[in-house]
């Protein structure tokens, strides 16, 4: 067996920094039968970077992760770890650690043997393997549980064992596939912090798959939003929150309201008026790009005002429901045919009540996309100082 170059048989300890590799994915396509699980995906992960793949189920995020692991052989494209092309290299030679959704601990082995199993495979001398294993267990705070069987541990403890088992081999890459999905919220938050701290301490490259945006935002250096087998957009959590790069990301992340117009519905002079709750008209400063087929106007939830009394420029809306998140109270309202989620006014309106909605075009974020959903242009390019209200009320407004 060819041993990975980064074998832990050197005298390094588990807590010292591992050599972490950059990962490059180029034009990756994976098909299952006739359906594309992922198509033409490019991704670069810097050494030591924590990248989350965020998306709904079926978006291809797990397939992308499993391709990097080598459990899925792509139909085309390349995967590089460092400068090595690993596209067709069997998983066991890739030197990554992986944490699975349902822990995937070996139930017939004690915790210590689970953790040491990767060292045993690499023929690390017994005494050294024992030390490294103990050190890894200490790292996740489970020294006392070394002689127990996985089933004797709680879910959170099991996942920490899995983490220790993945880290003890000094991988140059840590892959995690919704590792906290089966845990309750409190434990999940605790482990999010633990995993992030460990990853930063060892400065290991990490790719993390999740469908939970809060999880992705709280842990990652960079979040990659995936949809329908493609990367929809990516950025730091702050960037994605304040200026999502695609209409999909805008509707998936946070509580943005997205008004989508077909190309034909954008007037020739670029003046838009009459969107639900729009305070005053605005004009697109640049003409719509040639291959754009839809234009999306994104308003963040914190830019939408909601009054319980009529206010200037505010449009009447009906409350459909309310939801308390713990930090704030949200209400879902209907303005004409558009349904929006907004922050509730202090009076706490109930379903069926009237409220009044308004937003300023100055807070808009505009995204132009082609017919297949690729982003042509995203950014703030509106002139909100248009004086005349105009008479160009757009048809077919779709809000999300």
């Amino acid at each position, binding site marked *: 067996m060819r041993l990975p170059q980064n074998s832990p048989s050197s005298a390094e300890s588990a807590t010292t920094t591992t050599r972490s590799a950059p990962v490059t994915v180029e034009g990756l396509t994976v098909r299952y039968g006739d359906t594309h699980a992922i198509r033409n995906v490019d991704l670069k992960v810097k050494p030591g970077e924590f990248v989350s793949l965020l998306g709904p189920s079926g978006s291809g995020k797990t397939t992308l992760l499993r391709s990097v692991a080598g459990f899925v052989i792509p139909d085309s494209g390349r995967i590089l770890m460092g400068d090595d092309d690993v596209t067709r290299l069997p998983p066991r030679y890739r*030197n990554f650690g992986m944490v699975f959704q349902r822990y995937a601990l070996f139930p*017939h082995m004690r915790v210590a043997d689970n953790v040491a*199993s990767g060292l045993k*495979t690499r023929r690390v001398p017994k005494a050294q393997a024992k030390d490294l294993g103990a050190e890894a267990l200490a790292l996740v705070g489970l020294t006392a549980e070394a002689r127990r069987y996985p089933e004797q541990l709680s879910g959170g403890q099991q996942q920490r064992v*899995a983490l220790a088992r*993945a880290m003890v081999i000094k991988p140059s890459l840590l892959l995690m596939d919704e590792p906290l999905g089966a845990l309750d919220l409190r434990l999940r938050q605790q482990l999010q912090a633990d995993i992030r701290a460990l990853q930063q301490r060892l400065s290991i490259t990490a790719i993390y798959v999740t469908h939970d945006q809060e999880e992705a935002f709280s842990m990652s250096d960079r979040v990659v939003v995936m949809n329908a087998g493609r990367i929809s957009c990516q950025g730091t959590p702050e960037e994605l929150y304040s200026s999502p790069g695609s209409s999909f990301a805008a509707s998936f992340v946070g509580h943005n309201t997205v008004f989508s117009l077909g190309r034909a519905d954008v007037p020739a002079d670029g003046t838009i008026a009459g969107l639900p709750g729009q305070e005053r008209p605005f004009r697109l400063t640049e003409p719509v790009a040639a291959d754009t087929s839809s234009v999306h106007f994104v308003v963040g939830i914190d830019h939408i005002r909601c009054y319980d009394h009529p206010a200037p420029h505010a449009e009447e809306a009906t409350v459909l429901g309310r939801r308390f998140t713990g930090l704030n109270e949200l209400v879902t309202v209907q303005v004409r045919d558009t349904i929006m989620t907004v922050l509730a006014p202090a009076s706490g309106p109930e379903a069926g009540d009237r409220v009044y909605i308004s937003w300023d075009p100055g807070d808009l974020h505009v995204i132009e996309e082609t017919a297949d959903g690729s982003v042509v242009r995203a950014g703030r390019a509106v002139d909100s100082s248009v004086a005349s209200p105009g008479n160009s009320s757009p048809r077919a407004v779709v809000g999300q």
Partner: protein
Amino acid sequence: MQGRSRKWAFGVVPLGVFFLVFFLFPEVYFLRAGLYKTDTFGQISSSMTTETVANAFDGFYPHALYRTIELCLLTSVFTLLLGYPMAYAIVRSRRWGGAVFIAVVAAMFSSAVARVLGWQVLLAINGPINAVLHKVGIGPLHLSNNFTAVVIGSVHAILPIAVLGLMPVCEMVHRAQTEAATSLGASPWRAFWRIFFPQTWTGVVSVGLLVFAVTAGAFTTPALLGGGRVAVLSVLIYTLASQSLDYSTAAVLSFVLLVIVGLAVAAGLAVGRRGTRTTITAST
């Protein structure tokens, strides 16, 4: 609570009555004959005697017992050797799983007579198997109407049941576990032997014991493929009861067979329960 706690009786009582009337009573009635002696054809002596039991453990009958156990052991081993990879393929292989499963189930629905006759043709001294062996310079081998034929036929007969029994055993080991092993540097071979197999072996043993029990009681295959030369207990009992009309000896041998099957089933259940208990107690 009273009403609820008695609900089980609706299921258990008819089952108990059925068991009593159609199994236990005839079984005891028949086995009782072993404590008497067959005087002339079909006539059982009026006084109890241990003579039949003593005779049964002399001479030829212990050989039949040995032959039966040999057949059951060989059948279990070969069935597991063939069935385990099939169950593994059904559970794990995207490409071959469906095809293997259909083949296994189809074999189960074929009639026992057709299966036996098929083997008689295949295994005959001038049959296709010997023809192939002849081409490579072996044989001809005596494959039909003997013990070898019975083992082959028994394995074929029980294989579908064994595979269906092994499938849930193989399904228990989640794919992520072998993937985890590979991510830790294990070859597929090592992942199988260190991770997959150890988790399935109790299931394998209990399916093996089930095969053992079913084969011990099987009559058609040894009777037809043995060509009258393979005297396992089931065949002997049939001959004694229907041709020699020696009900007493038949009863004694039936009791011996019942004990063998009973022990195998009990052992199988014990192994199976031990396997589940370790996981259950461990999870509390």
